[in-house]
């Protein structure tokens, strides 16, 4: 295996894990099948476009991203999503409508055309004997560190425990004084914000346009069902299997075979192991 392939695998797996993280929270914890997940990635990717449109300095990209995505997510949670807890299929349908809505709104504001964003780091960097874009290497390292932090927070934090309690038994959680409405809203907004940050990070490396969200949705869902809902390890394993298969087969065979293999693999997992490789549902 060449070192570039290794780095490509690292890039694909880590970015997919990052993109799918928000869905893991919203789908895995709140049981909202969020078909608009990719649109939050898309809005996040537009953050640099917003800052340059408003003439703001580059370091404000992250705050602008969080504020925009967070605001949109909060409004949607209060008006639509909160009616959908416990109605999984309805959540799938309603968020499909939300996805169209968000795409159309972004199109109205920014137009249909492609946007372009420059990476903060340019040039390539020599790793393991291969020239690899410096920005990508920085992102891979950042995502790995971020996930380690999240893992530690997840095992220690009180909020994480409360979310677990709420998922396990909403009535009981309510009874012991957990404000489930606030907690759900918080978890939804947080999940969407991670998607937005993923979009911001990916922006310099991908196309940016209102329809881009779909690219991220399906792969995220498949990564989750393969890995199993409800645990960070599952998310990592799922992203590894989905992105790994696509990248590896894409390199040794063709992208078409890689794509078909990912779909086939997902079907097999959904059929034979619907709870994924790792699952906390038992």
């Amino acid at each position: 295996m060449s070192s570039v392939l290794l780095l490509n695998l690292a890039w694909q797996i880590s970015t997919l894990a990052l993109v799918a993280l928000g869905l893991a929270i919203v789908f895995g914890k709140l049981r909202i099948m969020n078909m608009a997940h990719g649109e939050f990635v898309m809005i996040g990717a537009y953050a640099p476009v917003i800052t340059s449109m408003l003439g703001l300095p580059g370091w404000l990209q992250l705050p602008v991203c969080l504020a925009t995505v967070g605001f949109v997510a909060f409004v949607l949670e209060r008006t639509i999503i909160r009616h959908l807890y416990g109605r999984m299929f309805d959540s799938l349908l309603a968020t499909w409508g939300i996805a169209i809505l968000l795409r159309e709104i972004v199109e109205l504001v920014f137009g249909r055309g492609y946007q372009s964003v420059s990476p903060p780091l340019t040039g390539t960097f020599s790793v393991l004997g291969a020239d690899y874009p410096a920005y990508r290497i920085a992102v891979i390292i950042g995502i790995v560190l971020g996930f380690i932090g999240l893992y530690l927070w997840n095992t220690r934090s009180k909020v994480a425990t409360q979310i677990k309690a709420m998922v396990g038994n909403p009535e009981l959680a309510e009874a012991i004084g957990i404000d489930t409405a606030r907690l759900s809203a918080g978890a939804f907004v947080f999940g969407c914000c991670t998607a937005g940050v993923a979009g911001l990070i990916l922006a310099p490396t991908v196309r940016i346009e209102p329809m881009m969200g779909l690219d991220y949705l399906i792969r995220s869902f498949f990564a989750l069902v393969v890995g199993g809902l409800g645990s960070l390890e599952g998310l990592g394993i799922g992203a590894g299997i989905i992105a790994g298969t696509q990248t590896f087969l894409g390199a040794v065979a063709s992208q078409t075979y890689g794509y078909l293999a990912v779909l086939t693999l997902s079907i097999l997992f959904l059929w034979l192991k619907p709870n994924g490789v790792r699952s906390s549902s038992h």
Partner: protein
Amino acid sequence: MAYQIGLYLIYGIAAQGIGFLWGKTGVLPLGQSLFFGIAAYVTAITLKVDGNLFLNLVLAAMVLALIAGVAFVLATLVFRGRNESGPYFSLITLALVMIAEQVAGTATSLTGGFNGMSGFNSLGDLDPFGNFYYVIVAATVAVSLLLFILNRLPINLIAKAVLDNEPRMQLLGFPTHMIKGAAFAFSAMIAAMAGGLFASHQGIVTPTSTGFALSAEMVILTAVGGRFHVLGPLIGAVIVGWASAELRGSFPYWELLMALVFILVVLKAPGGIAELLEAAFRRVWPKTPTPLTPSVVAPPTRSGTRPAPLRFEDVQLKIGVVRILNGVSFETPATGIVSVIGPNGAGKTSALNTITGNLNVTGGRIMLGEVRIDSRPPHNALGNGIGRKLQVPSVFFSLSVSENLAIAMMAGRLRMADLFRTTPLQWRSRSLSRVLNNPSVPLKNELTDPVQHLPQGHRQFLEYAMTVAAEPSVLLLDEPCAGLSPDETALMTELVRVYQIETAGLVIIIEHDMSIVEAISDKVLVLHLGQVLAFDDYKKIRDNPDVQAVYAGGTK
């Protein structure tokens, strides 16, 4: 108008299939254009090769049968061993349609690739917008009529019951995975028929005909039109299609408006346009609920096998790392009432679950007479003569009392041919009549009430009546008297005792109330920590020091 509405009707037909599947069984197909597209391609190829009408129709029938068969096998395999229709199945259909779209776009030599297959005439060389339009209308009418007929057949009630409470349906002996598989196959066949019409009507088939976007579009049409009504999806397809054609070019916010309407429908009007129309209609012409009138003597049940002793042989049950049953062995007599007692967590309910197959044993075996019965699917339990009432009353909450009873009457009695006759809905057995006619049993005055409005005690009697309707020779009762008043408790124990005497069968009852245990038990089985502590008649159990030690330990 004809040239416009033809296409919408074709989509409407496919959406009717989705409505049938989704509205009745709760299975949401996200890949219906898989069948639509495959049939469209096959039609295109056939029409290209040979225009002989008779040959084409024969081939169409064969393709429809094949597609239905494949869909049935697929869904049955996926649903086997499960008792719910979670999102996994929807996601599988989604992945399948994505594969189909990719293959259709890549296999250029077979499908023409992205540009599609064209250059063929319509079926029977009819003008697509003249006479073929009437073929489409005829197909729409035929499918609608078929669906209206299905609504009056037992299938309709069975499908609704599967959606309402699948575990209960399995315990009533219905192979729910096959029922859902059949519903899926039926909807696939309708989608395929629509696909064939589409190819013939349009004269071109492209990968979009078997694509994810079309699948999603058809689900949206179904939801907006109304999935619970035969005509709902048709109304949705025509209204949305027509409005889209009128507004798309001139109104730039068309897709925005569509998305908002769709979200509103999902949130506020799950029944869609059809339900709103029906509600308006009913305000003018109200409909009074009529109970099903049981007027036909039910055929004999198939579940009444000869009484036989139930034998546990070193039964082990492990879930994860937790040992629930730890070498349970006992043998009951062939007839009589056996009470199962023991502290919470002793494994009582789990033991019943291993008998019905809701849990598979991890060691040992369970015999009913000479038949090994452990680790087979729950829907086969009734076939072994085993009926079960659950701890929390498990009935069909969205159905009326009489519909609940009608389902129960079909349990163990329904044959394939009965699915296509209305009489099973009117079946009533003599023994069920006796239970219902008992002046103390509350149900007969509330036959048209939805079960969700029934008090707890009445639900207990309903579930009991439903369980004994199939006349199982082994009756498993899990705390049948929980939540009952003293009078109701007396009535329930009386019913159980009479049932046992009438059938000369075996009743196994989990019970905490020692006075009930004393009153009805021929033998008592004491479970503790997943093992048999004692198995004897009531007096000996009462005097058993081990049992006393466990119960003195505190928990009731």
